């Protein structure tokens, strides 16, 4: 047997698979957006199974507080770009495939170009803005998106925008959730997440990709799988065969003004800025760097605490929630200058 095929002999032996399916995988180009809790396991199995080109898009760096579920990284990688570390590791795991890191932040300006070269995209992102952006870009470009999302002990998996036989497309994320107020839904930092759930859902996403490419098994098109890691119960919810939304253009990515820790410290010394902590009470109790404090979902109810003309620097642990707070202020209080602390508290003591 050819040594390349020997590596894949245990999947080529599958009924309904065979060497032709392996060739389909070898020819396939798959983009993983988000090299985090979902992207790590899904990229691992795409690489292992011999997908010919695996792109990994993430602008973020390895952070110690994510290592409990981001199994591709070591503490010695902290601070390095996740997409680059991931590609380097996976290239060693499978030297026979091509790995492409994308380290620019995915925006409405570049998303069409980034996904252009790929056949199918895994959504392993950790925020609603990028989920909607990817979803809409997938619809506009006619590419399926393999969606995965996790929170605490629960996960969701689906495949959006699969071409039906009659020329229509299967439902997408906006059929399920037309819009979301991101300040109302806690992320993994606030609500926590069990690491094994990330592994299970990420592997399920890679599984859907392999089935889509090789046509072995039915993909989760027109369906959403909802899984509970506490009871191990899963349910598959039917959402119809055809999309009912009409996506004609990308929504422009919000431009969130950020400020570095060094600049913020200078502003505090000069009394030109005010800090606003948007973390949970529990996080605040453990440590804070001063300023006002409203949990992210309470900012909206406290808009009268902000004065027009003044400058506020919002902070959280990573910069994600503070970014949401800045977006809210931009919409509701355009006269107030709002900034997000870049990199969150993690950057405070490094500068």
């Amino acid at each position, binding site marked *: 047997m050819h040594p390349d095929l020997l590596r894949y002999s245990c999947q080529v032996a599958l009924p309904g698979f065979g060497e032709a399916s392996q060739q389909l995988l070898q020819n396939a180009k798959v983009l993983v957006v988000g090299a985090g809790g979902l992207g790590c396991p899904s990229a691992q199995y795409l690489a292992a199974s011999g997908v010919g080109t695996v792109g990994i898009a993430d602008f973020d760096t390895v952070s110690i507080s994510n290592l409990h579920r981001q199994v591709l990284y070591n503490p010695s990688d902290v601070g390095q770009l996740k997409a680059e570390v991931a590609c380097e590791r996976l290239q060693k795991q499978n030297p026979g495939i091509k790995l492409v890191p994308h380290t620019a932040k995915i925006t409405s300006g570049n998303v069409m170009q980034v996904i252009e070269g790929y056949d199918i995209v895994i959504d392993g992102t950790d925020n609603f803005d990028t989920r909607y952006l990817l979803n809409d870009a997938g619809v506009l470009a006619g590419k399926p998106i393999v969606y995965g*999302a996790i929170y605490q002990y629960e*996960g969701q998996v689906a495949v959006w925008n699969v071409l039906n036989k009659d020329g229509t497309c299967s439902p997408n994320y906006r059929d399920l959730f037309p819009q979301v107020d991101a300040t109302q839904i806690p992320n993994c930092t606030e609500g926590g997440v069990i690491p094994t759930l990330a592994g299970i859902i990420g592997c399920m996403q890679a599984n859907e990709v392999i089935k889509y490419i090789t046509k072995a098994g039915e993909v989760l098109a027109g369906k959403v799988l909802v899984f509970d890691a506490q009871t191990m119960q899963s349910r598959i919810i039917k959402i119809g065969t055809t999309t009912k939304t009409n996506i004609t253009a990308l929504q422009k990515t919000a431009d969130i003004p950020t400020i570095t820790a060094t600049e913020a410290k200078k502003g505090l010394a000069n009394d030109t800025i005010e800090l606003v902590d948007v973390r949970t009470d529990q996080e605040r109790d453990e440590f804070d760097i001063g300023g006002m404090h409203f949990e992210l979902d309470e900012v909206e109810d406290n808009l009268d605490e902000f004065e027009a003309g003044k400058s506020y620097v919002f902070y959280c642990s990573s910069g994600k929630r503070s970014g949401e707070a800045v977006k809210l202020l931009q919409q509701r209080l355009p006269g107030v200058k709002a900034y997000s602390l870049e990199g969150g508290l993690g950057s405070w003591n490094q500068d």
Partner: protein
Amino acid sequence: MEITVLAFGIAKDIFGGASVTVALADNATTADLKTSLEEKYPRLKHLASYMVAVNNEYAEDGGVITDRDEVAIIPPVSGG
């Protein structure tokens, strides 16, 4: 009639448990259920959107709910 509604994701926090019971008029629709839940739990409305699944099927607003149906509220999830 009394309907037991299963909660997923942040809906568990909003309802304060894995399920809640709501009283609905006979022949109530999914829209009626949403209105009733959003009155009792205003935070649900703040989510901007969430899915109602009846017997493991996406429920349109006009669909009628009976007390034999299994009803679940599935909000969006952001983590990755």
